[in-house]
Structures are given as structure tokens and as C-alpha cells.
């Protein structure tokens, strides 16, 4: 139960590891920046939103997405690490899907982006598997008892994304307009697509 009191800050520890590796010549020029660029610029929940909007407007794409989401996402240019095997989970009026990784924090980075802190918190990971209806309600999504909830535990190499139900009143909307209704929260399943 004793903890050292002189623990260096995470920042100082990060710099220590970085400088130790750099001084040994182990970090290729630009390698860290390239990763950070990908993480902040390429991986983005707007990618997943575009996939959803396409599925809402293009029945053939939707069919391909549900059969093989990895390829369907790659059609739109979303692929790479943590996107090697993507499975799309289609919400239905009577069945809702929500994603968690209880043991670490795995997520489909290319389509959902790096996950937010709440997704990675012990609180979410511990609770959503066991009491999803309560957790979703606390987070603002109150699902009636007769709507089944499926909690998808990201315990292996499958990376999930939720295809929320298309909101009413969006007939004729463009893909871009529709994509704007789909948040990261909706792609994980703690929210619905925003109403029109």
C-alpha cells in the first residue's frame, strides 16, 4: 500500500522515455509526428458518420457494409490499424447496440477515432456490460424496457461500429446533411443519431 512519493509527472516520464529512445537513435525521423498526425487528423468519427450516411442512402452499400464492413469502409478510404476487421451493427427500432472494451479500450480507430476518456474509464468499462440500460439512461439515452440491448465486448480482433436508425424526417437529405446527425456517441451506441 506504500507508494513512492516522488513519482515524476506523466509528462516528465514521457519525455524520459522519448529522450532515452531518441538518444539511442531508435526513433526514425518524423515517426512520432506521423503517428500523431494520423491519430488527430485521419482517425475521426466523421469517417464513421459518412459510412452511416452512405448506408442510409445507398442500399447496395448498406448490404456490402453489413456483409463486410472492412471492405465497405475501405471503399471510403477508412482502413488501417485497428480497422483490420470491422463489423457494423445495425440498430433496429426494437434492438439497440452499444460497444465496450471491458479489458482495455479497443476501438475501430479509422472509423470512430481514438476513443474518448469516458469510453476508456473504469466506470464505463465495469458498468455498461452489466447494467447498460441504467448507464445509457445516465448518459442521456432512456431506452424502454421492451427495446433489447446488445452490448458488444471488444475482446478479440473484431472492431465494431454501430449503424444507428435513420431519424424520421430526413427523406431526401444529402449524405453530408445526414452525416452531420451522427456523432461519435451514436457510433459507439450511447446516443441515437440526432433528430432531424
Amino acid at each position, binding site marked *: 500500500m506504500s507508494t513512492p512519493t516522488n513519482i515524476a509527472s506523466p509528462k516528465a516520464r514521457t*519525455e524520459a522515455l*522519448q529522450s532515452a529512445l531518441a538518444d539511442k537513435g531508435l526513433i526514425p525521423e518524423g515517426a512520432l509526428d506521423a503517428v500523431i498526425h494520423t491519430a488527430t487528423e485521419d482517425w475521426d468519427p466523421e469517417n464513421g458518420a459518412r459510412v452511416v450516411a452512405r448506408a442510409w442512402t445507398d442500399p447496395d452499400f448498406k448490404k456490402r457494409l453489413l456483409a463486410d464492413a472492412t471492405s465497405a469502409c475501405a471503399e471510403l478510404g477508412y482502413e488501417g490499424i485497428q480497422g483490420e476487421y470491422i463489423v457494423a451493427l445495425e440498430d433496429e427500432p426494437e434492438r439497440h447496440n452499444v460497444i465496450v472494451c471491458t479489458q482495455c479500450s479497443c476501438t475501430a480507430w479509422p472509423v470512430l477515432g481514438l476513443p474518448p476518456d469516458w469510453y476508456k474509464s473504469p466506470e464505463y468499462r465495469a458498468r455498461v456490460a452489466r447494467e447498460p440500460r441504467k448507464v445509457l439512461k445516465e*448518459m442521456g439515452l432512456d431506452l424502454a424496457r421492451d427495446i433489447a440491448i446488445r452490448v458488444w*465486448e471488444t475482446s478479440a480482433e473484431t472492431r465494431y461500429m454501430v449503424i444507428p436508425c435513420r431519424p424520421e424526417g430526413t427523406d431526401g437529405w444529402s449524405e453530408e446533411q445526414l452525416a452531420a446527425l451522427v456523432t461519435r456517441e451514436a457510433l459507439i451506441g450511447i446516443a441515437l443519431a440526432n433528430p432531424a
Partner: protein
Amino acid sequence: MDGIHDLGGMAGFGAISYEENEPVFHEPWQATAFALNIVGIGVLRNHNADEYRHSIERMPPVHYLQACYYERVLTGAATLFVEKGVVTKEELEERAGGAFPLASPNAPDPMAELEPQPVARFTKGDRVLVKDIHPAGHTRVPRFCRGKTGTVLHVAPAFSFPDAAAHGGAFRKEHTYHVEFASTDLWADAGADNESVIVDLWDSYLEGVDA
């Protein structure tokens, strides 16, 4: 390992704190820590993703629960750079100007004895029982579904078996299955009617159940 990381279903945790419009990284060091680990895996080949996950699991429980995600990433990656002999803890602490807590060592006998299953034994609709294994090392079977029976919803491709890959075991690939469990079967008394959990499980974690 039956460690603190295996949080699914654990009671006692409170409200989930939610931040609107959260940035990808809150502080620059978090981005660097993340990138150091990705470079460590993908460029330097210092460690693989399963070793990495297990290095985080090996963090002392209090440190694990208190650290933010990127401090866990940093601690796991640093542990593996030290364990592989690339840097020393002393060097890191000297550079950091303070203690640099790492994860605890690997268990001496980390793997459960599970027969490799190179060919998919199950198909959609099959009832399967999750073996009640308790390996001392890395595994991806959450405790909450061990000894429980579920239904295969989907057969995924074969992927490297993590229990072996995390501990330098012989490379093997096995199919994983999306296995659905009724929440009331996982947690009697949970009051979780009309809820289910789907766990993605490697073939050798499972055994068939007669219909």
C-alpha cells in the same frame, strides 16, 4: 490473469464523467506517449500488441485505476522497453527526475493448456460453453463469461491467439466467434431482462454443448 483490468460487471464504480467535444489528446505528452507505443510496436518491433495489453494488465491495481488511459499506455510501453533491455529503469528515472513506476513482472507459467484449434469448430447458432480457465498470464476471456453458455452469432476470421503471442508462445491462429450471453445468465440478480452481452472469443476458449 484475473487482474484489475478485467472490469466487466464489477460493482462499486460510480457515474461516468462525460466531457463535451473532448479533444483527441488533452495534453501533448499524451500524444507522444501514444506515438511512442505505436512506434514501439509497428516500427521498432520491440513488442507486439498482446504483450502491450498484458504489460498494462500487470500494473499494480491502484496505479491502474488512478492512471488516465495514456499514463497506462506510457507505463506499459516503458515496462516493455525495460524488459526487452532497450533502456533501464534507472536511466528512465534519472531522465524523469523522479520515480517511474512500471508494471509488475510476468508470471512464470502464464498460459493455460488449451489445445490449438486451427480449423473453426463452431458455426452460427451453435451453443458453446466457455472454459473456466484462470491463466496467470494474458488472456482475452473476461471472467464474467467463464463457465457460461452462449450462442454463436457470427464466425470471424482466424487471428493470432493472444495468450500465446503475449508470452512468446508458438504462433497460432484461430477463428473467433461472437458469442451472445443473456445478461441474466451472466449475472443472476442483475435484473437485466432483455439485455445481452456479445463476447468475441477464440476457438480454444470454447467447448461445444449438446443441444
